[in-house]
């Protein structure tokens, strides 16, 4: 297991370096030089030359890249053009909201998707199975933001059951020691704030979780159908084990292996989908922040934000990979 872990960790190095090169070149390719974008359109030649020298833009590209790596290593992602604040500070403020939303969407997709897929497979060919197939087809065909708009229209605008924007009602006073509003409410004993934050999460989480839900239930169904025909399942049934025991001990456990792969792959989808979902619900996370940066052409924010999200996805995927090694000895051995 140790060798497997070390191998995977070493693979991380070239990927992270490659990411930093891509993001670095991305900035170089931007229309207008960074000096001009810092000073604005009406900057005169002299001050542009001055800034160019200050920023070292006249140095060879590899020197500039090395300098960029050094500032990255210091944890410096630059300064937002729109707010003049460090990008890292803004990420720290914004990221908990996105994590909260992503986790809620993930929980929704897993808790609903696995049982749905399992029962669809158990009643293979029945009405439940067929309707779950149709639903999952719609689930993978509907753009997240459109589902978000529809949910908002029905449950917030028409029925008024749930709030339509933001993370917390403006009239609720709450402290936020962790930045995760639901958790904050629970920790400070402010149940009203916790409940309110939860209510604000429901619609965005359902919208964001819909595609993973569809994928998870489809894979669960296919995987259970596969495993059900395995020899060891037939043997278990033949020796007279009650079908509940066969299902839980043999079918379910083995069927979960491909499902766990798919769940792991959803992290990137959830984080990039959060950009659209947050925009629909004006949810103040990384997504709305990036969307505002697109509108404002705030390139340092886009650069830092995209690099940050990509690194998070890479690291989470690595953790998921490592956990397969624990789950499935076959993978661990194959990795040698």
């Amino acid at each position, binding site marked *: 297991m140790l060798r497997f872990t070390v191998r995977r960790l070493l693979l991380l190095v*070239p*990927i992270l370096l*490659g*990411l930093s090169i*891509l993001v670095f070149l*991305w900035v170089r*390719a*931007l*229309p207008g030089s960074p000096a001009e974008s810092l000073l604005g359109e009406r900057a005169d030649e002299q001050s542009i030359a001055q800034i160019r020298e200050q920023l070292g833009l006249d140095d060879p590209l590899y020197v500039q890249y090395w300098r960029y790596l050094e500032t990255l290593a210091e944890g410096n992602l630059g300064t937002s053009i729109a707010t003049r604040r460090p990008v890292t500070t803004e990420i720290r403020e914004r990221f908990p909201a996105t994590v909260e939303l992503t986790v809620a969407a993930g929980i929704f997709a897993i808790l609903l998707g696995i049982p749905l897929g399992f029962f669809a497979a158990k009643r293979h060919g029945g009405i439940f199975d067929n309707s779950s197939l149709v639903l999952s*087809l*719609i689930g*993978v*065909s*509907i*753009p*997240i*933001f*459109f589902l978000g*708009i*529809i949910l*908002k*229209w029905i449950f917030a*605008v028409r029925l008024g059951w749930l709030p339509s924007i933001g993370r917390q009602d403006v009239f609720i006073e709450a402290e936020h020691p962790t930045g995760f509003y639901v958790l904050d409410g629970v920790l400070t004993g402010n149940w009203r704030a916790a409940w309110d934050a939860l209510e604000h999460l429901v619609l965005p989480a359902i919208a964001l979780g819909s595609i993973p839900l569809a994928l998870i239930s489809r894979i669960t169904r296919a995987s259970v159908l596969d495993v059900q025909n395995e020899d060891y399942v037939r043997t278990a049934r033949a020796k007279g084990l009650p079908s509940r025991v066969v299902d839980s001990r043999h079918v379910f456990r083995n069927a979960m292996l491909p499902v766990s792969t798919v769940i792991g792959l959803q992290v*990137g*989808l959830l*984080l*990039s*989908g959060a*950009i*659209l979902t947050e*925009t*629909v619900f004006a949810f103040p996370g990384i997504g709305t922040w*990036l*969307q505002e940066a*697109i*509108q404002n*052409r705030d*390139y340092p924010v*886009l650069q830092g934000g*995209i690099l940050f*999200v*990509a690194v998070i*996805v*890479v690291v989470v*995927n690595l953790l998921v990979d490592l956990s397969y090694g624990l789950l499935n000895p076959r993978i661990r051995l194959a990795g040698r």
Partner: protein
Amino acid sequence: MSVAEVEVREVQLEAVGGGLWREALHRLVRNPGAIVGALIVATFVFVAVFAPLLAPYDPREQNLALVAEGCCPGPSRAYPLGVDDLGRDELSRIIYGARFSLLIGIVSVTVGLTFGLLLGSIAGYFRRLDSPIMRVMDIMLAIPGFLMAIGIAALLGPGLLSVMIAIGVVNVPIFTRLMRGSILGQRENDYVLAARAVGVPGRKILASHILPNAVSPVIVAGTLALATAIIDAAGLGFLGLGPQDPATPEWGTMLTDTVRYLQTAPFLAIFPGVAIVIVVMGFNLIGDGLREALDPKLRGRA
């Protein structure tokens, strides 16, 4: 004619007969899902091509008198799907919007396919180039596709072309990996070895054995990629990265401002959204149907 030559002829006959393709087509037309998908896509293409003939109004024509009493009058006999906040006919805009979705889908998938197949074949054949190409692809795959599309589109500035390039680039590593895996897998197959053993020339093996088998997963992935491309294009449009010309109605861009009118005119969001869902569903249905039809494991069960 030597024995080996006769055998070559036989092997060729079988390959040219296109057993796989004819069978696949057979299975495809018996799959109700694929039929529905094909009908949806055919209608979509028809609407996109003949938009100027089908649309009752010019999609750019503003009629501010219609929205004088507030936004926006809903469906009526003159305007079957209502009018938007500038008094433009919603139906005509959706009909013209089909052109953009079709164009973006086809161009971006073609870009992705072309470069992906090229790089994938190179990586699959030339072992020395395999590792460098695939490491770059791994890095690209490590970034969530939609996030990379945002980055590229933001770099190029909003517009039709940048949306197509952005989504095309995102597709490149997907097809590269698929093609390479496919070719590597086919090369080691028993029937390839058998063909080589009876003396079929390498070029023929490639053309009549490896490529047809390697290409079917690519066809499936390509159809499904069209679905994703249309969804992602709408997403980029929704974020303000789509075509900015107010005259060009792109479905995702049409949804951007509607959130504001959700209270009074929800249909402005619903109609373009439903159009996206139906078209994407059509491509998904065809893709799933093709996957089943081209699966060699299911051959002979038609």
